[in-house]
C-alpha cells in the first residue's frame, strides 16, 4: 500500500513513540507491579489508586496535568527548562512521556498478575539455597514472569499506539514531532479531502495491531516452552 510522505512520517513517529514509551515504562512497571503483588504496607490502597489514576481519568485531564507540571512554565517543567534548557513542549519526547504515563497502569496490571502467578514457594526454595531476596528475584522470579512482562509490553505498545487525548493536550499536534497516527487521522478528518488519508492510516493501524498480536503470541509460546509450561 502506498502512503504519502506525510503519512509515512506519522507512522514512523507512532512506532518511535510507542517503542520508547514502552522501553521507559518497563523497569518502573516491574518495580511497582512487584510492590503491589508482594508487599503490604499502610497506605497501599492509596498507592494502588494513584498508580491507576491515569486509567480512570479522562485522557485530556491527564494531558492537562502533564502540561501544568512538565510544561515549560509548569511546576517541574520550569526548572527543567531553566536549569537544563530541556523542554518537552511540542516535541517527540513529550509525546513519548504522554504515551508512557497513559499506558503505565495497564502495564503494571499485566506484570502484577504475572508476579502473582509465580509461586512464592519457589522463591523460598531459592532463599534456602543461599540466594538473597534480590538474587532470588533476578534469577527466579523475573525469568518466570517473562510471559507477563511480554504481555505487559504488548499492552503498553498497543495503548501507546492509540494514545490521543493526553498527547494532543500536552504537546499539541505538530507534524513530524507529535502527530502520531491517531492525531493524523484526526487532522485528516478536518481536511476537505482527508477521507482517503484517514482510511489509509486506519488500515495501517489495523495491520500494526494485528502484527503486534501475532508476534506476541509467537513469543509467548516460545517463552512458555522454555519455562516448561507447555
Amino acid at each position, binding site marked *: 500500500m502506498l502512503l504519502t510522505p506525510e503519512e509515512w512520517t506519522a507512522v514512523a513517529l507512532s512506532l518511535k513513540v510507542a517503542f520508547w514509551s514502552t522501553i521507559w515504562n518497563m523497569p518502573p512497571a516491574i518495580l511497582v507491579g512487584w510492590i503491589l503483588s508482594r508487599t503490604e504496607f499502610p497506605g497501599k490502597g492509596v498507592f494502588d489508586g494513584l498508580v491507576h489514576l491515569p486509567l480512570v481519568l479522562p485522557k485530556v485531564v491527564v494531558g492537562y496535568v502533564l502540561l501544568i507540571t512538565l510544561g515549560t512554565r509548569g511546576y517541574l517543567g520550569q526548572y527543567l527548562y531553566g536549569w537544563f534548557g530541556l523542554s518537552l513542549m511540542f516535541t517527540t519526547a513529550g509525546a513519548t512521556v504522554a504515551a508512557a504515563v497513559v499506558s503505565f497502569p495497564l502495564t503494571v496490571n499485566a506484570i502484577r498478575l504475572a508476579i502473582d502467578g509465580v509461586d512464592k514457594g*519457589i522463591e523460598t526454595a531459592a532463599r534456602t539455597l543461599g540466594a*538473597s531476596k534480590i538474587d532470588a528475584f533476578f534469577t527466579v522470579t523475573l525469568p518466570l514472569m517473562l510471559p507477563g512482562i511480554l504481555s505487559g509490553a504488548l499492552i503498553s505498545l498497543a495503548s501507546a499506539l492509540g494514545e490521543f487525548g493526553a498527547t494532543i493536550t500536552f504537546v499539541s499536534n505538530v507534524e513530524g514531532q507529535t502527530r502520531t497516527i491517531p492525531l493524523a487521522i484526526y487532522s485528516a478528518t478536518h481536511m476537505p479531502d482527508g477521507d482517503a488519508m484517514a482510511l489509509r492510516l486506519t488500515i495501517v493501524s489495523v495491520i500494526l495491531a494485528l502484527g503486534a498480536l501475532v508476534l506476541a503470541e509467537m513469543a509467548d509460546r516460545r517463552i512458555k516452552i522454555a519455562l516448561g509450561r507447555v
Partner: protein
Amino acid sequence: MIEIDVSLARNTGFTLTAQFTAPQSGVTALFGRSGSGKTTIIQMVAGSVRPDQGQIRVGDEVFLDMAKGIDLPIEKRRVGYVFQDARLFPHLSVDNNLRYGQRRARHAHSIGFEAVVDMLGIGHLLKRRPHTLSGGERQRVAIGRALLAQPRLLLMDEPLASLDEQRKLEILPYLERLRDDLKVPILYVSHSIDEVLRLADTVAALQDGTVLACGPLADVLSRPELLPVLGRFDLGTIFDCVVKSHDADLSLSTITFADGELRVPLVDRPVGAPVRARIRSRDVSLSLSRPIDVSVTNRLAGTIGSLRREGGPYVNVEVKLANGKLQSLVTLESVDRLALEEGMPVWAMIKAVAVDSRSPTFPVQNEPFNPPSHSAGPNLRLVAGRSLPPGLE
C-alpha cells in the same frame, strides 16, 4: 544439639508451643497427624515462618532469638530444604538446578557434585528440564539440589507424601543412603509410621501444636501415653537386632537382640546386618505357663511391669524382659481370668514381627542372596516392602 523452643498463635486459632532438643546427627522425625504443627516447626527452622516468641539454635549458631532480636535471614541459615512438591526451578535444566545452591555456597565444599549425582542416580537426567521428570526423579533432584548447597542441616517436609507407593519404595533407599553416608543431620517431617521406623533415630511426637515426647525412637514408640498420636494398632515395641542366620528352605531368618532371638520371614539383609524389629502390642499375647502346644514360634519370658487400662475392652500390659520391655494389648476379660498383676512371671507370645532395614542398603549386589518372592507364613509378616531402585539390580 538442635534446640527448638518456640511459640506461635495464628489468628485462625491454631497455636503452637514446641520445645524439644534433637541431636545434631542422624535423622530426627517430627511425627504427628496433619495439622499438628510439624511443617510449621521446620518452616521456623528454615526461617520462612517467624514465631511470636522463642529461640532456635543449631549447634553454636543462633538462628533465632526473639528476646534478643536475632532472626537470621533464610539464606544465611544454611539449611537444605526438601519440599513435598520438589519446587525445582522450571526454567533451569536439572544440572543448573543442582548447581544453584552450590554456586552460592561460599565456604568450603564438603559435598561434591559427582558424589551427589552418583548417590542419587541422577547422572542421566542432567540435561533434562524439570517438567520432563517423573515425580520420583524430581524429588531426587530436589534432594541433590539441597545437599549441594552444603547445608549444616537438612529439612525434609514429607518428601515422599506426593508420590505413589512404587515411587516411595524407589526413593527410600536413597534416603537411607543419605542418612548413612553423609554427616548432615536431618529433620524429617512425616505422618507415616513406616517411614519413621525405617529412617529415624530420634522421634518428636506432635499433637495439636505441642511436642508430646522426644527421644530415641524405641523409647518414644513404646510409650503407652502416646497411643492417641500413634494410633492404637501402630503402637508397639522396637528392638534393634542383628541378622544371625538365614534358613532358605524354611524361608526364615533368625535375628538376635539383647533379650533373645526372633524367627522372622527371610530378611534380605546379609548375616551381621543391623535390622529393626517392630512388634505391635496387639500381636503379643500372654501365657502364664511356658507355651508348648501352640503354633507361635516366638516366645519370650518376662514379668509384668505394669497394667494400663485403655479405651474399650483393652488393657495394655508392659512385660519386663531381662533388658528391655515389651507391650502387649489384651482384653480386660483376659486380665481378670488370668488374674494378671504386677510382678507376675509371664510368657509373651509374639504372633508377628515387622522387620525394617536399618543399615546402608548399598551396594546391593554384594549381598549373599536375594530372597525369592514368597508369601509370609500365617504367623509371621514382613511389613516393610523393599524393592530396588532402577539401575541397581
